[in-house]
């Protein structure tokens, strides 16, 4: 199989370049990550992140043939050759396919991704009804791989100020949690021309989410909360 892979080692390379590889590899039943591991056997220098290899940890987000995917759950069979693998767009490249996720995590931290509840702690757990719990479905499953945020044109233009689909989905996850008491403060933080409202409903995030989540719908629910409290 033929591959074309983005290479950049800041210690030795002046500029990033695309390296061509050709290896004997049967794609049947294999994932992109399997091919990357096979390529690493040939070229030890090739660097990429991976951990769980089953779409749960979210560390191997890469751009394969122009789409942001998790290498470990993307079928190799059927991909157009040469299979072009690049790092996730818009983030700084540390080396080869490894990107600097700091900006992404900053936005994640900014939405305070934890329950804020000032009531005295109950003896056991804080209970929810089945309906209240169902509100969180489609939100809690996010694994923070960064595929959605780095595919979002609004994030490309204003990466420092627009929170991006992933952080906004996380924000919705806590805004809609019946146990959270910081709704107003959370909405105050989002009511800004950039943090939330740079989303124009382009929906690249929905297209690219490897977990099949819908950040655009989550953003719509946040907008609805903002409208509800303002009118």
């Amino acid at each position, binding site marked *: 199989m033929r591959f074309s892979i983005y290479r950049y080692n800041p210690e030795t390379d002046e500029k990033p370049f695309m390296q061509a590889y050709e290896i004997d590899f049967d794609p049947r039943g294999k994932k992109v990550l399997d091919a990357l591991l096979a390529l690493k056997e040939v070229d030890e220098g090739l660097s990429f992140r991976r951990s769980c290899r089953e779409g749960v940890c979210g560390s191997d987000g890469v751009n394969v043939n122009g789409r942001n995917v998790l290498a470990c759950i993307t079928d190799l069979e059927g991909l157009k050759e040469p299979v072009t693998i690049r790092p996730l767009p818009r983030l700084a490249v540390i080396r080869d396919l490894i990107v600097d996720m700091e900006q992404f995590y900053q936005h994640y931290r900014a939405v305070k991704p934890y329950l804020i509840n000032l009531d005295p702690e109950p003896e056991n757990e804080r209970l929810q009804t089945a309906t209240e719990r169902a509100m969180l479905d489609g939100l809690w499953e996010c694994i923070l791989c960064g595929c959605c945020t780095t595919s979002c*044109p*609004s994030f490309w*233009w*204003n990466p420092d100020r627009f929170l991006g689909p992933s952080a906004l989905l996380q924000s919705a996850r806590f805004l809609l949690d019946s146990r959270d008491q910081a709704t107003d403060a959370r909405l*105050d933080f*989002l*009511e*800004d*021309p*950039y*943090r*939330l*409202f*740079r989303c*124009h409903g382009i929906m690249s995030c929905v297209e690219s989410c490897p977990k099949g989540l819908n950040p655009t719908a989550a953003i719509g629910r946040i*907008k609805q909360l*903002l*409208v509800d409290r*303002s009118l």
Partner: protein
Amino acid sequence: MRHPGGARSGLTIWLLQRVSAAWMVLMTPFMAWLFLAGPSEYSAWVALFQPLYAKLLALLTVAALLVHAWIGLREVMMDYVQIMALRLPLLFAFLMGALLCFGWAAHILWSLA
């Protein structure tokens, strides 16, 4: 903490864009009729805009269009014009242009006789 001023204007502007769009959608059938099957004579056209409500509806539609267009341009510039020294005068120029168009439309509507 909420602050007065533009930094917290995201929701208002987004809502204005939605509302102006909804208004234009409401007016679209009427405008389509006007342009496709409306009166072909000047006097009949003028007569259509004689009642005050017709003038006001037309002016409101112009306002919705201009508000919608200005917000759209602002969105585009927030993405593509990253230099503030360029973005601010451009936004201001478009705003002045929109206000001029609004005044012009009002003048036309009320000068029909």
